[in-house]
């Protein structure tokens, strides 16, 4: 039980955080004539599509606005880092001790840590992606705006850092039962 929890925590952490950066889902509303983007996770997708579109008329913005894409990528890297940290905390527990309180608690701690990092970075990636797209669009019109909107992006990326901090604090509580013969 604790083993299943830990595995789910580690995998969900990196999977969900990466999906914040990369995957996309498009759902069309049949009744409306316009296509609505109902739910598209994926900060890099959101930023990238706006950046490429805006750069048709203003090619100067491409190199500066890649910073927004890098902010989104950092979110996925947080997921990988925490997944690596969590997997060092994994330990094989002998059958007699699977349901011991210590091993249950350690399993729950790693599970919660993975969930925290995963979902916090998921929403952080979406947020930074949306702001990055509007940053690219407004930079194409007026270059003095780039730095100002970048300040807003930095506020957004702080959310992913909160998730990593709490996740690491919580994973420090994963103390498996000591090996007794």
């Amino acid at each position, binding site marked *: 039980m604790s083993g299943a929890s830990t595995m789910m925590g580690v995998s969900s952490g990196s999977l969900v955080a990466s999906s914040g950066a990369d995957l996309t889902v498009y759902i069309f509303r049949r009744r409306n004539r316009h296509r609505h983007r109902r739910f598209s996770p994926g900060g890099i997708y959101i930023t990238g599509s706006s950046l490429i579109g805006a750069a048709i008329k203003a090619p100067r913005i491409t190199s500066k606005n890649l910073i927004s894409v890098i902010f989104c990528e950092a979110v996925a890297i947080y997921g990988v880092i925490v997944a690596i940290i969590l997997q060092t905390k994994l330990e094989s527990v002998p059958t007699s001790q699977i349901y*011991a309180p210590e091993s249950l608690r350690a399993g729950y*701690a790693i599970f919660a840590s993975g969930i925290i990092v995963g979902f916090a970075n998921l929403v952080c990636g979406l947020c930074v992606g949306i702001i990055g797209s509007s940053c690219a669009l407004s930079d194409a019109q007026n270059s003095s705006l780039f730095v100002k*909107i970048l300040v807003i992006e930095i506020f957004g990326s*702080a959310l992913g850092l909160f998730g990593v901090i709490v996740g690491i*604090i*919580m994973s420090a509580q994963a103390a498996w039962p000591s090996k007794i013969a």
Partner: protein
Amino acid sequence: MSSTFGGDETAPFFGFLGAAAALVFSCMGAAYGTAKSGVGVASMGVMRPELVMKSIVPVVMAGVLGIYGLIIAVIISTGINPKAKSYYLFDGYAHLSSGLACGLAGLSAGMAIGIVGDAGVRANAQQPKLFVGMILILIFAEALALYGLIVGIILSSRAGQSRAE
């Protein structure tokens, strides 16, 4: 096999999930608030670049929601220490409720701050007298998250009060 653990075995599941709920839902609210008002600021700044720095207020207020969730998550996760103090199901449920209270309140406050911030900064660009009004509405929205933080702290302080018998 004797263990130095006191309390119920599955109680830490609820406790840790409470900490997770606090941070995750607050971050969802903060992200929505930041993104929605950020889009408003960027759209508005094209026409009025001098107002952009003044209009970052909704973004800062949304970021504070994430900090509320961080506070409760750290309080909860340092409170789960079955070696030092027995951790019963009562404590687990108290921590779960504390985390859900703070997190879901932060989620709702973040959605409010996002929508109000977006509309407010766009309107402020056209009518400068609206700035004070926008700030007042944002403060009311932020108060929702503060209520969640207060209730969360009260609930998590009850976690030490279970009885063994």
